[in-house]
């Protein structure tokens, strides 16, 4: 097996100190040796191509799995830990004159973006830098195939550079899961095709908690292109874990076959759902989804005008919401189509908070995946003895 080629197996405790930054434990992996920084059991899980968390055997001292590929990777306790940690980090950041924390000093985080996404990339970059990690932005626009280099080659390149975490955005569903099989470090899914975008769901849940004090028991209505939305998938899974009641509202063409098995209710009638909604989350609808028929597919609805009329959140509809209800949008918005400018900029809107909260939540995720067992805002960890660039 491949374990044999990866040098002597190191006990998990030697590399990921469970004891809160004990210098002796952290220093076990000596710089310059070939000792793997990955617990042996992680090597074994890599070949199993598990799309889920990597610590199924429970011996990994980290509070989360090795990767964050899907919102379904998070248990209620883990998700709550992320939100609590984000809250703590946000509080410290706001209180301090210097926003930077030393927590991930010497660690390398790679932003691997195969799709343009300035807002998500910037958010991750800021999060990593506030934790004092070294950040490399590796932009690889276009599919790996058109670029000539395979995803595997890219992964092996990053591996050789000694990255500790790879934040991956890709146009193909599942690409971060593929990546996770080829790198030793953690992989964070920053949006893959029409699959998931788990940190978006976490920041959305964080925002709900901030505005409404809780997530459990909230009635959350998600409106729009559910079929193609990674935001919707991650939100449905996470909100279900956190105990919210989710209703999906969309024209039937923009709901996947099989949605009946999701932990969410489905409605075609926005007006019927709004009066009982605590949260309305509007999803972007892309131009190519609408008529007339495109080259490859068939339009999902007749016109932008009809979509806005039936599913757009305008001022009149927003008035049907309960007083405390909030309006969310993951951005970027199509103003005037799925949401009217008055609503997007109104008092119910959390859109700007979502962006701000994104940084805190991503800090929490990176911290828990990479530094996990040490206090998030505590003392500087001793030199971790990284190989590679650091």
């Amino acid at each position, binding site marked *: 097996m491949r374990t044999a080629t990866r040098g002597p197996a190191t006990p998990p405790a030697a590399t990921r100190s469970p004891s809160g930054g004990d210098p002796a434990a952290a220093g076990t992996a000596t710089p310059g040796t070939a000792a793997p920084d990955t617990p042996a059991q992680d090597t074994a899980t890599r070949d199993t*191509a598990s799309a889920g968390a990597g610590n199924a055997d429970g011996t990994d001292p980290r509070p989360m799995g090795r990767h964050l590929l899907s919102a379904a990777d998070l248990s209620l306790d883990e998700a709550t830990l992320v939100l609590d940690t984000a809250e703590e980090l946000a509080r410290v950041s706001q209180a301090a004159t210097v926003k930077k924390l030393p927590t991930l000093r010497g660690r390398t985080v790679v932003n691997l973006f195969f799709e343009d996404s300035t807002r998500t990339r910037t958010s991750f970059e800021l999060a990593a830098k506030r934790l004092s990690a070294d950040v490399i932005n590796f932009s690889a626009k276009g599919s*790996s195939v058109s670029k000539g280099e395979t995803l*595997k080659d890219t992964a092996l390149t990053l591996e050789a550079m000694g990255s500790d975490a790879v934040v991956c955005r890709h146009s193909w*569903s*599942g690409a971060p899961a593929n990546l996770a099989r080829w790198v030793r470090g953690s992989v964070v899914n920053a949006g893959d095709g*029409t699959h998931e975008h788990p940190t978006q769901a976490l920041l959305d849940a964080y925002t709900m908690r901030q505005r409404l004090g809780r997530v459990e028991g909230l009635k959350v209505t998600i409106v729009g292109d559910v079929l193609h939305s990674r935001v919707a998938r991650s939100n449905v899974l996470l909100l279900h874990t956190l105990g919210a009641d989710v209703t999906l509202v969309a024209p039937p063409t923009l709901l996947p*076959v*099989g949605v009946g098995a999701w932990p969410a209710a489905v409605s075609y009638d926005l007006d019927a759902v709004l009066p009982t909604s605590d949260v309305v989350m509007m999803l972007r609808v892309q131009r190519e989804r609408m008529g007339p028929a495109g080259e490859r597919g*068939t339009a999902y609805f007749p016109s932008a005008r009809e979509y806005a009329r039936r599913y757009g959140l305008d001022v009149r509809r927003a008035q049907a919401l309960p007083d405390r209800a909030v309006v969310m949008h993951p951005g970027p918005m199509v103003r005037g189509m799925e949401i009217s400018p008055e609503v997007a900029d109104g008092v119910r809107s959390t859109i700007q908070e979502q962006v701000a909260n994104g940084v805190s939540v991503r800090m929490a995720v990176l911290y828990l995946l990479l530094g996990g067992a040490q206090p998030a805002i505590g003392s500087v960890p001793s030199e971790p003895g990284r190989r590679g660039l650091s």
Partner: protein
Amino acid sequence: MSAWLLRDVRPYGEDAVDVRLVDGRIAELGRDLPTGDSRVLDGASGVLLPGLVDLHTHLREPGREDAETVETGTRAAALGGFTAVHAMANTDPVADTAGVVEQVWRLGRDAGHCDVAPVGAVTIGLAGETMAELGTMADSAARVRVFSDDGRCVSDAGLMRRALEYVKAFDGVVAQHAQEPRLTVGAQMNEGVVSSMLGLTGWPAVAEEAVIARDCLLAAHVGSRLHVCHVSTAGSVELVRWAKSKGWDVTVEVTPHHLLLTDDLATTYDPVFKVNPPLRTAADVEALRAGLADGTIDCVATDHAPHALEDKEAEWGAALPGMTGLETALGVVVETMVAPGRLTWRQVAQRLSAAPARIGRLDEGPSPQGRPLAVGEPANVVLVDPAASWTVDPRQSASRSRNTPFAGRTLPSRVVATFLRGRPTVLDSAIVETAHAGPGRA
């Protein structure tokens, strides 16, 4: 030519006998036959079947010799117990002329591991627009009888009707890859609960079933026979059952992977499980097994689809669909059908040898395949150890490619020996390297 005496073998898994193969034919069947000057193979009470015939193999030559060649693909076939395979037409160049099909046929004859029956493309370049010279391919040395644009559907109803009619002149058959293209734009996996969760574009069952329904009606209307490749859904089985109840000349195949695997394997995003048509649900798998058991499904065909490593070590969406299957086909059929008591060995011989040979018209001519185990018949036989089991290791495959979805699985029964017209191509579960070759290699 030397004679072989197969001692203590059980034809169709029934009573043990000795079988003597002389001059390419089965010369004797009986108890305690004298050895004479025959070489002896101790069958150890193994099951003797007619050599298996695959209606659906991708040998990739010409064009993608990095993924498979006729030589490597037919080695895998022989190891899987096959004595004949149909080589699909989607090569590069496409097998849409007599020149290409004769080339593939000669490569098979020269390799000598099993017979290679080229499939001709229905349309030029598989483009689905203009009928290829089907009659010329039929009249060529390759004697093409099966025509298919496999990989693509002949979706134009008018063209399909003409092709069905035209091949009647030479007793040919159109083997349809049933996939309505407008319903499968960008499709990546079975459309259902799993695809909805994974965010992979769905390949709905109706895209297969709608074409099968249409083609059955067309075949009935023009009085032609129709073969449907790799049926994968419960609905397809129902439609075929209905068409057969009308007495229409419709035959269908199922692949081993559709008999065993389900779409939830896609949750790994490992493209080794990407295939077209896609893996379906457990209910579909059960319907396919029932259909194969009751004869609604005529035969098992591998759809052996080797791919180079770089075409599989990719993102799911970028990876090519297809799985290797020649070496694992019998094991999967035993696991899913024989072990649970849903097929007898005699029925296995029907589904994996006689029926596919009949559909491809390989059971006639000077060197027929798929014939029964009887004196005077060609000595195309395979000896199976039904008690053995083996663990699939892609690195051990004779195929040039490694994309088996069964890696790490333990499959029951093992091919011990394969004989092609009395000559062993496989002995002790290993290829027999011979100086033999057909004419052309001297």
